[in-house]
């Protein structure tokens, strides 16, 4: 009895977001796509690299968004999945000579399996307890990667250097440019997949679980299956992002995938708006660019400045970029009427 009471009285961990509100309209999507296609042609290679990282972290935040915004489960362990994906790609490329593009689906599948398996014991946990369990995963990962048994493949603490791919078919493009468009293509594919996933039967099941687990199971949703499935999908996408990250950065090492990364991704999700998929890119921009801005303001106190900026964002727009987007939409609506 008490269990039911708890669930009923407890405020839902994640606010219910209607599925239409999770995506952008066609017009806006096309404008965004055009921007992503054109901007790299006009800027320096360094900015192209930053944009590539923006897309990659965007993917990782998107993955977390599916898990938290979609199925209502928390995770502070995304860095672990990201690391597994990165190492899978790096090891396949450097030791097995596999083509970089082929390593991504493999990284995705391995991470899906890893996430699905991790989701099994995690089923018994919810809310903060689940967050703590995943937190443990994130702290353990860098040490696991250092283990002597795997050192032959992982390069141990020294990490692995990855070769950056050239543009294929003799396309007249720099490596950075090619990698950007490659990443963009992967990102778009995964974004479309995610949007459709959330609109499908499975997506509805995720959201039903998020809104009320008991009601969902009463409707015949296999709660256990869909919860672990959400973990798997999220881990799989994160793994692909990790693989892309390894190729873009050209280096994997345990120190790249510490708990800080997991927290950054979590932060990106909150800033972008929980449950709003396009917000993932905004959140990713926040975690990439705001630390640089903070450092520009004060070198010694960069952490503190970052904290203040983050606080301002949470205080002023608690629902993140989604809130900004809604306000903007209303403004545009008013202008149209006038």
């Amino acid at each position, binding site marked *: 009895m008490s269990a039911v009471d708890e669930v009923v009285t407890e405020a839902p961990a994640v606010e219910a977001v209607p599925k239409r509100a999770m995506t952008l309209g066609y017009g806006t999507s096309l404008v965004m796509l055009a921007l992503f296609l054109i901007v790299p*042609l*006009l800027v*320096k*290679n*360094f*900015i192209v*690299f*930053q944009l590539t*990282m923006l897309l990659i972290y965007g993917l990782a935040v998107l993955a977390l968004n599916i898990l938290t915004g979609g199925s209502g489960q928390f995770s502070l362990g995304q860095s672990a999945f990201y690391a597994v994906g990165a190492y899978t790609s790096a090891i396949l490329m450097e030791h097995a000579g596999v083509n970089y593009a082929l390593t991504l689906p493999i990284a995705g599948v391995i991470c899906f399996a890893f996430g699905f398996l991790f989701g099994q014991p995690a089923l018994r946990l919810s809310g903060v307890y689940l967050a703590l369990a995943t937190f443990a995963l994130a702290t353990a990962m860098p*040490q696991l990667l*250092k283990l002597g048994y795997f050192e032959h493949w992982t390069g*141990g*603490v*020294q*990490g692995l*250097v990855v070769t950056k791919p050239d543009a294929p078919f003799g396309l*007249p*493009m*720099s490596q950075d*440019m090619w990698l950007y468009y490659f990443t963009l293509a992967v990102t778009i594919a995964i974004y479309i997949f995610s949007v459709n996933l959330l609109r499908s039967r499975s997506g509805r099941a995720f959201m039903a679980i998020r809104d009320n687990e008991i009601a969902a199971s009463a409707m015949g949703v296999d709660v256990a299956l869909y919860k672990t499935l959400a973990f798997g999908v999220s881990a799989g996408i994160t793994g692909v992002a990790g693989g892309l*990250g390894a190729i873009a*950065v*050209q*280096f994997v*090492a*345990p*120190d*790249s995938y*510490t708990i*800080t*990364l997991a927290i950054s991704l979590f932060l990106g999700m909150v800033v972008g708006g929980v449950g709003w998929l396009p917000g993932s890119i905004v959140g990713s921009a926040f975690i*990439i660019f705001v*630390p640089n801005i903070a*450092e520009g303001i004060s*070198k*010694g106190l*960069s*952490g503190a400045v970052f904290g203040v900026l983050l606080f301002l964002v949470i205080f002023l727009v608690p629902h993140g970029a989604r809130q900004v987007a809604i306000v903007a939409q209303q403004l545009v609506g008013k202008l149209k009427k006038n």
Partner: protein
Amino acid sequence: MHSRSRKALPIKKIDTFNQTKEVQMPAIHWRFGAVSAALAIAALTSSGALAQKKYDTGATDTEIKIGNIMPYSGPASAYGVIGKTEQAYFNKINAEGGINGRKITFISYDDGYSPPKTVEQARKLVESDEVLFIFNPLGTPPNSAIQKYMNSKKVPQLFVATGATKWNDPKEFPWTMGWQPNYQSETQIYAKYILKNKPDARIAVLYQNDDYGKDYLKGLKDGLGAKAASMIVMEESYEVSEPTIDSHIVKLKSTGADVFMNITTPKFAAQAIKKNAEIEWKPLHFLNNVSASIGSVIMPAGFAASQDIISSAYLKDTSDPQWKNDAGMKAFDEFLTKYFPEGNRVDASVMYGYTVAQGLVHVLKACGDDLTRENVMKQAASIKDLELGGLLPGIKVNTSATDFAPISQVQLERFTGKSWVLFGEILNGDVGG
């Protein structure tokens, strides 16, 4: 007007150089037009008048732009003080008129010791801030992450702040150069000492479970050679995150070892020395140079417990009374009071940053008016018997086209009374990368 355009020209000319690799970019790239225009102008004016002064991106008649990457935040933030010391030292150089009339602009970014961030910052320095080279970036993983990039861009990655052995590899990576003696050569020196003075030693090793600890351990094993397996009775590792290493010490004592190889960072080194005294384990104690600081290790552990510990050094210990009246130390103190009053004198990183900045100034002076990336590497690779105020007497900086390990000499020292007493000859421990 005329002189102005002259000043600006060489930079553009070099810009075209850097672009040559990327000529195959799409035609829409707007810089392409500017580049070909610059090419045309450069071709027209590259006459004798400009032959004397040669510049690459990042250097002009009035300025030398230097990039740097430090962990000002994150797990290794204690080392951030190195970057601050370097900044202070370049302020001093600028206040005194700069190098051959050129002021140093030192751009230092934070990477939080996270390799992906290091790559981003390195690219920002090279492609956006357009520095002449990157100087003294800190940490083995961060430097490994940018090594390939720096070498493909042909931008010097000069005097990297890590003791790993792999930086001395001019054949494979002609644009990367180390600075301090590497970890492996240090334990090799201890191994030689043990083989000579205590050939039947039973060695217990305690090391930090990361690249630094493992590098030291490898040096020890290589140094002992075939006898390593029989002499080392236990290898015990600890994680940086452990609050105390007391239990490891007890375990090591139980092996009955008579030599203790202490490969730990300062906090743990102090704990180890203290625990040794507590449980009355008195082996021949070797302490790695990383933790040989009197101020941050020996004093907290206690002088009585630290007697007869053997270590090695290449820098003067600022907290050691024997250097009180030393000319180099006096200059260091003057620098601290005038340009870096907030610096902690006892912190070994301050002396480190001071010395490596002096080394760089030497290289830049040697470059004269030829401030190209190639010449910077050339001059850095032709340092002969350079003595710096912070180095122990007799230790000299030497490099050549095949030796990219500037400081490879150390001297053994034994802790006696209240200071280190140097003994034996200056030892050379070059290990190729």
